[in-house]
Each structure stands twice: as structure tokens, then as C-alpha cells.
């Protein structure tokens, strides 16, 4: 999909959103399309390279049975204050519009105290294990192993 010299750099690309709901998010962000392994639906997740950890919407976690996974109980400072939760490993898929989908496993923080509708993809244990690139002229997100 995206090549660096003679080698493949990424395997797929998708169109990302920079503003989802204007009133709530006045500044541009990067929302990419993902799907969890056991779900037939897609959802948007915000890329946040400045965040140490990824955060999974607790209702999606509950729906998919991820609250029962073995994990490490942890208390983290988040943009919404200090939250008690658990760190777990979860497989999910970056959905491609072109090229190929990419399934990876990452570490997510799940807290029942986290508001619905917000899933973040942070650096440690997730983005630190993959290649990604942006073409902000056309809102393309490139990804791959």
C-alpha cells in the first residue's frame, strides 16, 4: 500500500475524520475506523500518540465480554481525571478502505468510570508496535505491521 524504497511500509489505508461532532471537539483530531474481533460493527477511535495508554469505551468492553479478561488493576491519570480500572490485552482490526485490513493486539485501559462513546488509541502497548502515517491533505491514515 505504502512503500519505503522496495519494501512495504504499510498494508492499508482508510479515510480518517478530523472533526466528528463540532460542538464537543472544536479542534481537529484523528478518528480512525476500527472493529473489535467479536463485533460485526465498526466504530471510531481517536488516535492519541501523547497518551501513555489506550482507553476502551466501557460499554463496548462489557458488550464484548472484555470485562472478564485477566488484567492488571491500575489507577491512571487521564484527561478526565484519575480513574480506577484494569489494563488488558485486546485484539482489534484497523479497517481499510484500500489495501488490507490489519489486525493487531494492544493494551487497553478499561474503567467503568469512563464515559460512553470515547475510545482512544494511545502509544504504549499499541501504536508502539506498528507503522502508521498520515496524509493530512486528503485525510488518509496508513497502517501496517
Amino acid at each position: 500500500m505504502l512503500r519505503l524504497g522496495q519494501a512495504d511500509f504499510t498494508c492499508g489505508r482508510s479515510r480518517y475524520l478530523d472533526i466528528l461532532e463540532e460542538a464537543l471537539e472544536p479542534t481537529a483530531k484523528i478518528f480512525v475506523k476500527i472493529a473489535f474481533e467479536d463485533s460485526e460493527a465498526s466504530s471510531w477511535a481517536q488516535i492519541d500518540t501523547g497518551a501513555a495508554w489506550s482507553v476502551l469505551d466501557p460499554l463496548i468492553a462489557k458488550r464484548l465480554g472484555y470485562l472478564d479478561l485477566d488484567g492488571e488493576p491500575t489507577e491512571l491519570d487521564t484527561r478526565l481525571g484519575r480513574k480506577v480500572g484494569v489494563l488488558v490485552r485486546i485484539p482489534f482490526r484497523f479497517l481499510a478502505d484500500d489495501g488490507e485490513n490489519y489486525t493487531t493486539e494492544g493494551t487497553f485501559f478499561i474503567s467503568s468510570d469512563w464515559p460512553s462513546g470515547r475510545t482512544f488509541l494511545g502509544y504504549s502497548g499499541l501504536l508502539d508496535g506498528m507503522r502508521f502515517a498520515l496524509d493530512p491533505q486528503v485525510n488518509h491514515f496508513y497502517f501496517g505491521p
Partner: protein
Amino acid sequence: MGQPLRKAEPETRSYRERIRELVEADRVEGARRLLAEALERGDHGEDLSGWQRVLAKGKPIRVGGGELDFDRTPEVTWIREKSDPYKGQWVALLGDELLAHSASLDEVMSVLEANKPPRRPMVHYID
């Protein structure tokens, strides 16, 4: 006059405790180094497999598989223009068609399972 050097106290806390403390301070690389030290020593009698899992880097599983996604502009337009009455609810959209909505994600997913749409819908919470 200089302070007398204090002899370093031996570490009495468990590796699990020290790793958690580093993680909770967002010092992920420090936590990984301490975990590596613990695994190399191996004489502490602690089960650190949970920390080994969650402190690992993102792991590639598979390239390919599953249907490709497609242009979601109609879904986004729907959210921007028509989502106001659905605040506090989950919506399932395919193009500009609202397939299901409810305050309960389980209910929305049940509707999708009962009436499987032709392509993968987008599920979104209206804040």
C-alpha cells in the same frame, strides 16, 4: 560540612508493587526495564505474567481478512445534521440510514443481530 552518605535501604516492596507504581506514573519504559530485571533475576517468586502481557508492545496478528470498509461520509453527515434528537443514545448507521438507536448498546447490537445489514454498520454514541 557535607552530609554523611546514607547506605541505600534494601528494596522491600514487591516487583508487582513497584511496576504498578511506575505504570501509574506513566513511566512505561521504567516499568518495562524493571519487569525485564525481575524476569532476568527470576528468584522473587512473583507471578509477573500479567504485567508481561500488558507491558508488551502492540503485537501484529494478521494482515488481511474481513471485508474492506468504505466511504463513511454519509454516516458522518447524518451525525452532524440529524443526531440531536438522539443525544445520550447509541446509533447504528449504514450510509444515511438509521438502523437502530437506544440508550442501551446491547439493544442496538441485538437489533443488528436480528436484522443483519448487508454491510458493516457504524455504531456511535451521540454525546
